[in-house]
């Protein structure tokens, strides 16, 4: 029997229900703890519903990810969960070639086709089944920056740790920063450093930043790895507490750092539940159910005060109610 799934193209994706679900999970880098929780999510769903899946690790190399997708097309995987290394370059693969071969594609965090700085329904790319996430969008980063601005009224000297150019998270982080700079004139960015996401690099950049800007009062990082470098640098310089650290990422490390006061706030990242929701969407679509194009509320436990589908801010006050999904 055949089920037709509308993915926003002229031609629907046709599913042969005789064929069991064979899922390919494409991740950007397997050595990142956040990405590990994506795998955990899929693993959990596979155990629950009894389907087979394989993990393809691009090791931060987009050409490699595209090759892996081509190989997967050839090997008959009929559904993909994709965390793109870089959205623009996988665009053609996930929105054209995969649906053309009747493959259902779901994004579990990370968008395609240059949509990483968009919000809401625009996060979905026609040709794919659904997008799950919302915590790495400009809105999410803006929320943490607004939190930093709100916590610290008056003139602030801010240091920024972000990722390399063209990296999707960097793109949406940068967009949020641009908006904040316009809306909060007191939020003065005195230094912006592009790092390679590694803690050592961030440690080094933080030291330099502190030296050049002794009156720095706030640091905002795009991910926990930024804080992993920034916090020891602050400690070494004896500036704990004096410089307040805000980040996105919400990992186990962040929870500990919040408790100890090393960082002020983080955003919840829910890659495991996002992966689960993406797998669920694929299962639903294969069962003929209608699937929303964008799933911002992937079903993770909400922090008190958090609205479903909106970014959750984790602070010292509510950290007890937050369960990190990544180590």
């Amino acid at each position, binding site marked *: 029997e055949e089920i037709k799934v509308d993915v926003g193209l002229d031609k629907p994706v046709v599913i042969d229900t005789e064929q069991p679900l064979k899922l390919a999970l494409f991740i950007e880098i*397997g050595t990142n703890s956040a990405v590990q929780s994506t795998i955990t999510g899929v693993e959990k769903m596979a155990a629950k519903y009894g389907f087979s899946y394989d993990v393809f690790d691009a090791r931060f190399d987009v050409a490699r990810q595209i090759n892996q997708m*081509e190989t997967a097309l050839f090997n008959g995987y009929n559904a993909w969960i994709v965390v793109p290394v870089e959205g623009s370059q996988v665009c053609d693969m996930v929105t054209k070639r995969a649906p053309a071969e009747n493959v259902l594609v779901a994004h579990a965090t990370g968008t395609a086709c240059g949509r990483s700085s968009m919000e809401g329904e625009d996060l979905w790319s026609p040709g794919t089944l659904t997008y799950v996430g919302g915590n790495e969008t400009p809105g999410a980063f803006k929320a943490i920056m607004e939190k930093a601005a709100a916590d610290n009224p008056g003139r602030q000297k801010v240091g920024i740790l972000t990722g390399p150019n063209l990296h999707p998270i960097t793109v949406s982080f940068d967009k949020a920063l641009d908006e904040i700079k316009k809306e909060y004139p007191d939020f003065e960015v005195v230094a912006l450093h592009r790092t390679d996401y590694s803690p050592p690099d961030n440690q080094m950049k933080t030291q330099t930043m502190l030296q050049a800007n002794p009156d720095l009062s706030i640091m905002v990082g795009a991910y926990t790895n930024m804080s992993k470098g920034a916090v020891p640098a602050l400690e070494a310089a004896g500036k704990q507490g004096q410089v307040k650290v805000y980040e996105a990422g919400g990992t186990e490390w962040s929870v500990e750092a919040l408790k100890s006061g090393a960082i002020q706030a983080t955003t919840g990242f829910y890659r495991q539940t996002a992966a689960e929701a993406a797998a669920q969407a694929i299962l639903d679509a294969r069962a003929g159910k209608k699937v929303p194009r964008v799933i911002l509320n992937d079903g993770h436990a909400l922090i008190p005060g958090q609205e479903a589908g909106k970014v959750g801010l984790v602070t010292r006050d509510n950290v007890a109610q937050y369960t990190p999904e990544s180590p």
Partner: protein
Amino acid sequence: MTDSLAIAAQPIATGRRHFVDIALRYGLIIVLVVLVAVSQFLYPRFLDPQNIKNILSQNAPLGIVAVGMTLVMITRGFDLSVGASYAAGATVFASLAVAGWSLWWAGAVTLLIGLVAGLINGTIITRINVNPFVATLGTTSVFSGLALLYSNSSPFVVSDKTFAMIGRGSFLDVPISIWILAAVLVVGELVLARTVYGRSLYAIGGNDEAARLAGLPTAMLRTSTYVICGVCAALGGMIIASRLSIGQADIGTSMALDSIAVVVIGGTSLMGGEGSVWRSAIGLMIVAVLTNLLDSLAVDSNYQLVIKGTIVVAAVALDAFARSRR
């Protein structure tokens, strides 16, 4: 008149040399054949024509760059900047297409940029005598900085369908990128093995002083290899841009190491004076087959690292052993 020993020993020696030569060549080819056989055994769709096409077209840019790198390395050179030239090529090609240029002109300008990049490398290395490692490490940084500035750190997305032809189109049911790879390999092999130019490169790499004393324009010849390498890198960048319909300046970071690896696995020494395009082609295929096999079997990426590293070292060890037996 003299050397009667040599005369007597000649036929035997030649016989032995031939046998050794064959074993030498086959050392690496045997590794590849065994690898292919094992792949087919572990993964029955391996030899499916589509899979072969995938492998070849996926590795076309790397293979093309490796040909340029082979020339450079035969003259005892080194080019780390191929990744940057590759990225610059992709970016410029896509940007010109976006700007509405005809593909021919866009391609010509892109290749010209690769040529200029190579000329800069070659000049720094041969005229100012900067070690190729530092020189091309420095130009890598400069070229990618310029490409990022040019692109304003954004991708150029090309909507024009014909743009995708080089990377995705087919001719006689074989992807065009494979045709280009094949052409570059054949021309590269012919140039190295059969032309005066190629012979001169071996001479320079084997003994630069001897080549200079024999009257070869060594600085110019060495510069030319960087130029060719830069053009190859830009061509590789064109293919990847066309394949993805996008050009952006942050790609190709592993291109330098990968292409050098392919060349060296093929048995070309870092010390120059030896190597060949067909050897690099086999090095390329060993890496490509291994990657495809491990991905097709969806082997865990950490185990992939261990397995790939081990097999590559073992393959090269075998080749080295075969050569030392002569």
